[in-house]
């Protein structure tokens, strides 16, 4: 038992963000072109999009919904519809203050943490982090990464030869979301996005693009 406790303490003590090594060779324009490529993980604003969402929740609680989202200078607007077209959730996140206004939340989407969690999922999958990357480098696996760190939250955009493929978010050093971008993007929209929130109470969202404008 003591060994287990020591191991856990050691593990938590050693927890850290994946280290980044400097880009080698450094691109001629510094890291500017790499940052530009990382931003291709996200559609250019303003935009509106419709997705189907398959949610795999704990204890086999699966559900299917239609998500309608819009993003622009005024913020993020997200609507969830049942297959029958009934509006289950409708909220806005102000672009300047980040203040959240919930216009409608039908049970079970009226739980206190749901609105913030949903807007955070949508935001991390479709909105670029603010400002320039705080670091650009490579993982130990050789993948190129743009890293944004701000107020205890870190976002890594992982590039492969064909462009951005994964977005990871961390709270301090804990992985909070892993988002895989699947297929070939058109106007910054990938045909499919797989979002995974790890841990107890974690869930997965399989998001398929229906339409965007």
């Amino acid at each position, binding site marked *: 038992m003591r060994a287990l406790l020591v191991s856990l303490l050691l593990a938590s003590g050693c927890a850290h963000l994946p280290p980044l090594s400097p880009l080698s060779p450094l691109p001629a324009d510094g890291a500017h072109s790499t940052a530009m490529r990382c931003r291709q993980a996200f559609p250019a604003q303003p935009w*509106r999009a*419709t997705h*189907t969402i*398959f949610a795999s*929740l704990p204890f*086999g*609680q*699966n*559900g*299917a*919904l*239609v998500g*309608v989202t*819009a993003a622009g200078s005024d913020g993020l*607007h997200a*609507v969830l*519809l*049942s*297959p*029958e*077209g*009934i*509006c*289950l959730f409708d909220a806005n996140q102000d672009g300047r203050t980040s203040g959240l206004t919930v*216009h*409608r939340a*039908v*049970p*079970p989407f009226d739980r206190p943490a749901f609105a913030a969690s949903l807007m955070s999922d949508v935001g991390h999958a479709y909105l670029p982090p603010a400002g320039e990357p705080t670091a650009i480098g490579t993982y130990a696996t050789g993948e190129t990464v743009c890293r944004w760190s701000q107020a205890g939250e870190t976002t890594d955009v992982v590039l492969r030869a064909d462009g951005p493929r994964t977005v990871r978010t961390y709270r301090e050093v804990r992985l909070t979301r892993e988002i895989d971008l699947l297929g070939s993007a058109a106007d910054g929209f990938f045909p499919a996005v797989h979002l995974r929130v790890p841990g107890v109470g974690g869930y997965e969202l*399989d998001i*398929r693009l*229906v339409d965007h*404008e």
Partner: protein
Amino acid sequence: MSKRFALAFGCLLLVAFPARGAAPPWYQDWNSIRRAAAGIKAIEAAFVQTRTLKILSHPLVSRGIMAYRRPSDLRWEYRSPLQTLLVVRAGNVRRLIQHGGVWVADASAKLEAMKIVLGEINLWLDGNFASSRTFRPELRPGQPARVELYPVDPSLGKIISRITITFAERPGTVNAIDIIEEGEGVTHITFEDAHYNRAIPDEQFEPPH
């Protein structure tokens, strides 16, 4: 001008005083609606569902098929953009979603608003609007004739302000359903390529294997 007025007046008279001997419409009252619906033993149809939303410049369109067999078997299947299936056989309700090429159970069947609407479909198909304890029906015999359903429970009224069922010419059949939500948004469902009273195999009302 006077010709136009005469034509309009003539039309008004025709509506107000139909020709003597013309059969009353099948949607004249609740009893005639129930009698007409009783003549429909089975329905198979495709449907198109359009949902307007302020944030979208054009409506979201969903397509699917439905089947109904007396007394209460139902299949309601969305084929795009989501693939979901509701089957009701002998009172057994199953709701499934297609994901990764396989059908999996849909836990969102627990959503109260959906359960209410789906639970009402059987009453509608029975022409039995007046028996609903969830909605207060009002018959609007104009053209097109329709029933408007108002939620009895105010908490449901916060989600759905009314449902309109528009009748088709064929006795006992429905042309369209509109679900009008509180605030903004209308879901409009129209039926097409409908076949009536054909034998429908049991498998249509069972979950896929």
